[in-house]
């Protein structure tokens, strides 16, 4: 194995706490590992199940309008788009902010090899999207279209090269933004604003690409391909490779991806030390002369500290606000588009009749997947001694962390409520539910995030990406969030004889009871769990 392999192996062992689990001799930790495996398995099954369902709906929609050949390029473009967004805001953290870089750079390893290992790590993490989205899509396409045998060869060949270009774009843009902003004052704030704008623009562009107006229906094929190409220009090449069985196109697609990847790694390898050095050396800016001494309550002090921590990391902010951005774009879209146009954008037939009724659940789905507390304990890391040696009740610490989640989500929920109420012409009770249900979900998930992170902490990390995006706690909170939305959501849809409003009110009551139970558990058991950290 060469140096890239050695560095990559160490990275992979730290992901998801794998190495700790492999080497622990504590039977409790081993039991935890089993539960974690079950949790991950459940999450994977749920996500793949949802993916298969979505793929079937889209594929059938395409088949009905006799455009099934555009289905796989569209799925590939969508996967690339997801990889682009998710890689974009973690690229800086993985590439430039590893706490082990000082050690690695002092070793006889080429800088380009260190960078290569990080980019490969990004690539391997993104393979999950291939498993979740593209493999089910290939499976569905195979059943619907019954293509020639060569399809499976070409599809399999090109599959593993799909993430390369989106990773390059995301990390390149992330690197450029880093290089520009690191020379500025208020680096974190500017980086954050750029990240938010970038994500919002990309989401809006994808929505715009998906919308097809009535007068274009006659040239539907060209319009659809043009729309897909707007998301991902290599889609045309991919279509020729996979759906028209062109080996030449497949090799060109693979060749372009590999060439671009190689050039990119070389470029970043050359600039890496400069960027890393600049990021490590923060210039002294101020000459303190007194006068900034302020007094606050204990909870106020903790809350202020938590907010500063939250906004100091663009990765932390982006990872816990993509759902909010999506929710707000959706509600703004409702404001300007009618439900049928929105249905075209989402690509699901017949969804327009449900948007108004289930707006509270749609908003809750977006909100519930944003959980700042899932990694809030882990992020204390080596700073934990400060809280543990201070005269503070554990409950106060937990409340300060939950406060950050509420500070981020509640204003977004309020804005969403106003937009949806006006756009959907909701009556008073519906408007109340559009506000209340996402609010109870955000409180519930915030508390669950604390409980789960106390049970599955990771205080020994060298890169915050590991705890923010790849920790067991984050995964398990996602499982809980999905189950807590999907199960009641399905029940609300299928239970007959009761109005949707009444069913949503009952859901609200159930959630309030769950919040009370979770809070009591957090306060009673959480104290012991915190002391055991």
């Amino acid at each position: 194995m060469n140096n890239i392999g050695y560095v990559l192996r160490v990275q992979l062992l730290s992901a998801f706490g794998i190495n700790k689990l492999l080497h622990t001799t504590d039977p409790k930790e081993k039991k935890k590992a089993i539960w974690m495996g079950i949790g991950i398995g459940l999450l994977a099954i749920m996500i793949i199940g949802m993916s298969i369902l979505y793929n079937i709906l889209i594929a059938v929609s395409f088949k009905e309008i006799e455009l099934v050949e555009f289905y796989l390029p569209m799925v590939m473009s969508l996967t690339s788009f997801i990889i682009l967004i998710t890689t974009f805001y973690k690229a800086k953290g993985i590439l430039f902010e590893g706490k082990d870089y000082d050690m690695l750079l002092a070793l006889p390893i080429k800088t380009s090899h260190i960078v290569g290992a990080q980019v490969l790590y990004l690539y391997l993490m993104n393979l999950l999207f291939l498993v979740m989205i593209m493999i089910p899509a290939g499976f569905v396409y195979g059943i619907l279209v019954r293509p020639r045998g060569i399809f499976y060869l070409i599809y399999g060949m090109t599959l593993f090269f799909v993430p390369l270009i989106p990773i390059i774009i995301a990390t390149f843009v992330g690197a450029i933004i880093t290089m520009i902003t690191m020379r500025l004052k208020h680096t974190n704030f500017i980086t954050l604003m750029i990240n938010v704008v970038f994500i919002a623009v990309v989401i809006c562009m994808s929505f715009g690409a998906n919308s097809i107006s009535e007068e274009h229906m006659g040239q539907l094929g060209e319009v659809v391909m043009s729309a897909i190409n707007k998301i991902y220009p290599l889609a045309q090449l991919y279509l020729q490779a996979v759906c028209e069985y062109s080996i030449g196109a497949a090799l060109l697609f693979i060749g372009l991806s590999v060439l671009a990847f190689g050039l990119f790694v070389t470029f970043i390898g050359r600039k890496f030390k400069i960027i890393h050095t600049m990021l490590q050396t923060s210039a002294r800016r101020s000459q303190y002369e007194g006068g900034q001494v302020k007094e606050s309550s204990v909870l106020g002090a903790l809350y202020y500290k938590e907010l500063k921590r939250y906004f100091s990391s663009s990765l932390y902010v982006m990872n816990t606000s993509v759902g909010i951005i999506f929710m707000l774009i959706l509600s703004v879209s409702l404001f300007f588009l009618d439900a049928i146009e929105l249905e075209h954008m989402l690509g699901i037939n017949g969804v327009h009749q449900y948007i108004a009724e289930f707006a509270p659940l749609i908003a809750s789905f977006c909100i519930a997947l944003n959980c700042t507390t899932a990694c809030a304990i882990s992020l204390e890391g080596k700073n934990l001694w400060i809280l543990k040696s201070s005269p503070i009740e554990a409950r106060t610490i937990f409340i300060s962390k939950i406060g950050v989640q509420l500070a981020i989500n509640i204003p977004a929920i309020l804005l969403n409520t106003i937009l949806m109420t006006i756009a959907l012409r909701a009556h008073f009770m519906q408007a109340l539910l559009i506000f209340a249900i996402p609010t109870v979900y955000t409180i519930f998930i915030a508390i669950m995030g604390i409980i789960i992170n106390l049970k599955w902490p990771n205080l020994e990390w060298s890169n915050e990406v590991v705890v923010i995006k790849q920790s067991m706690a984050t995964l398990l909170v996602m499982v809980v969030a999905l189950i807590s939305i999907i199960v009641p959501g399905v029940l609300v849809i299928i239970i007959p004889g009761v109005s949707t409003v009444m069913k949503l009110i009952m859901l609200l009551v159930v959630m309030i009871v769950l919040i009370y139970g979770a809070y009591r558990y957090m306060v009673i058991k959480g104290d012991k769990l915190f002391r055991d950290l």
Partner: protein
Amino acid sequence: MLTIKHFSKCYKGGKRAVKDLNLQVEAGDLYGFIGHNGAGKTTTIKAIVGILDFEEGDIEINGISIQKDPIACKRKIAYIPDNPDLYEHLTGIQYLNFVGDIFSVGKDKREVTIKTYGDMFELTSSLGDLIQSYSHGMKQKLAIISALLHEPKLLILDEPFVGLDPKAAHTLKSIMKELCHKGCAIFFSTHVLDVAEKLCNKIAIIKDGELITSGAIEEVKGNQSLEELFLELINHE
């Protein structure tokens, strides 16, 4: 001030870090805690300040058990770890305000203490900068200032002189003597036997989790130097 009674700590996997430790630190004591690497010093210190939970024995601060009423105990103590990992996303003054708020230190008192110790450690002008930009020594100084904000009755330090320049180390020693003179008790671990010999009125030597000797420094070391005593005890036990 500090009473450790039959304290034992076993880590997961059966590794015994400390066995049946008994110690008493009185007000005004400058107590040195000495031992080789892995002897159990940091484990003991972390248990005293409430970072590490334990099942055997008890630790009392002014008669209050750290297990039964940790908040009351922590109000009286201040802790400075060997590696001061502070909140890098805060400025120095923001961190001091944070600690001041946790210990409910009034604004006026805070200002005076920060100015006094900030000037003594020549850190005042850097308090407006992010802790991220501080050197190890600067973080150590900031941690010391934060520990002194609320006038603790018991100061616990783990290897306090590591990373400090000679002037700062001298300043810290002066502060420690002054605090003890005012009735504060100081309990600190160190590898630097010279410092312990010159500074402390009492010492305890720990080896492989067990207390070998403790008491007034003159009685413990007799006519030998502390280094000679330490090596003799470590090699012969």
